């Protein structure tokens, strides 16, 4: 059961953390807030029946936001001599965006980038690779072949024998298509499959994009930074 004031307690803490991290680049700040948010979610998941007191304990164990912020700033100061921290997140997301685009237009390169990235899970990478296999390249390659086999299957050769009224066995055989109704059914089914296959790369791209957005290191909500997000 959810504690009565769970959302307020968590949002309040995350807002304080966000405020303490204000001097940091937004990508770093957002990443840290996401880490702490999933920490709270994991800690809550371990509870059988949470109360407000449990949540306050989780928050208390996390420590003062200023401490976490100080630790993060200490890391920034040491690293700032070599490079500013702003582009690192952006560059890595560029790889993922490129991967999604290439999956659509040039699948082999897209797949390579997809598997290089560390922002997707293996399951997501498998979906990105196999739905559909080969992306649009695969569809245009294997699509005609599959279509032809489909036609070949439904219009296969048939043979049968019947016993005529005079006791003679009449054997009939030949190559023809099934009757019109069945053919029409195949046609409708085929059209549905073709549309599904043609749309599937776009679905996959959207799916990967949405997954990426959740763990994106770029904060796209520039205008709404003071507004704390609740844990869903």
């Amino acid at each position, binding site marked *: 059961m959810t504690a009565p004031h769970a959302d307020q307690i968590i949002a309040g803490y995350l807002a304080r953390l966000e405020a303490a991290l204000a001097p940091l680049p937004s990508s770093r700040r957002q990443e*840290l807030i996401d*880490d702490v948010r999933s920490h709270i979610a994991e800690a809550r998941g371990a509870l059988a029946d949470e109360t407000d007191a449990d949540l306050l304990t989780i928050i208390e*164990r996390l420590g003062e936001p200023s401490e*976490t912020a100080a630790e993060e700033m*200490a*890391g920034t100061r040491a690293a700032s001599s070599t490079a500013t921290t702003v582009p690192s997140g952006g560059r890595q997301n560029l790889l993922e965006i490129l991967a999604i685009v290439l999956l659509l237009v040039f699948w082999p390169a897209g797949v390579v980038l997809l598997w290089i990235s560390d*922002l997707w899970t293996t399951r*997501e990478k498998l979906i990105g690779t196999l739905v559909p296999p080969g992306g649009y390249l695969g569809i245009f390659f294997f699509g005609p072949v599959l279509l032809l086999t489909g036609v070949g299957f439904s219009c296969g050769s048939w043979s049968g024998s019947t016993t005529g009224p005079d006791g003679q066995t009449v054997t009939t055989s030949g190559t023809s298509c099934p009757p019109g109704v069945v053919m029409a059914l195949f046609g409708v089914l085929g059209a549905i499959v073709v549309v599904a296959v043609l749309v599937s790369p776009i679905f996959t791209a959207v799916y990967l994009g949405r997954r990426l957005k959740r763990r994106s290191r770029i904060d796209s909500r520039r205008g709404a930074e003071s507004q704390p997000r609740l844990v869903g």
Partner: protein
Amino acid sequence: MAAEPLVTQMRKGVLDYCVLALLHDRSRYGFEIVQTLAAIDGMLTSEGTIYPLLGRLRRDGLVQTEWKESSGGPPRRYYRATSDGRRALRAFREEWSTFRAGVDRILASGGPA
């Protein structure tokens, strides 16, 4: 009360390497690392500070991360030591045993024999 800042001081130099040691042989996710460290007295007083530390180790190339599905919950970010991280840990291990032996000797007898 006076002991806490002392522990904090001592922890500063070694916590990075304790985390690297946890991530040497297998990958772990953030909350798992926190739980393991928190079980050891004095290792982690403010659990939130582990996340900046993990971020720093990653930017320094000492750990790598990977998202993995979890049963029932959202995907988790797993951390694992890189070859650079394992090398850093090896160097620390040697330094540490020399250092600890030196401190122990001084504490026991008031100076090298």
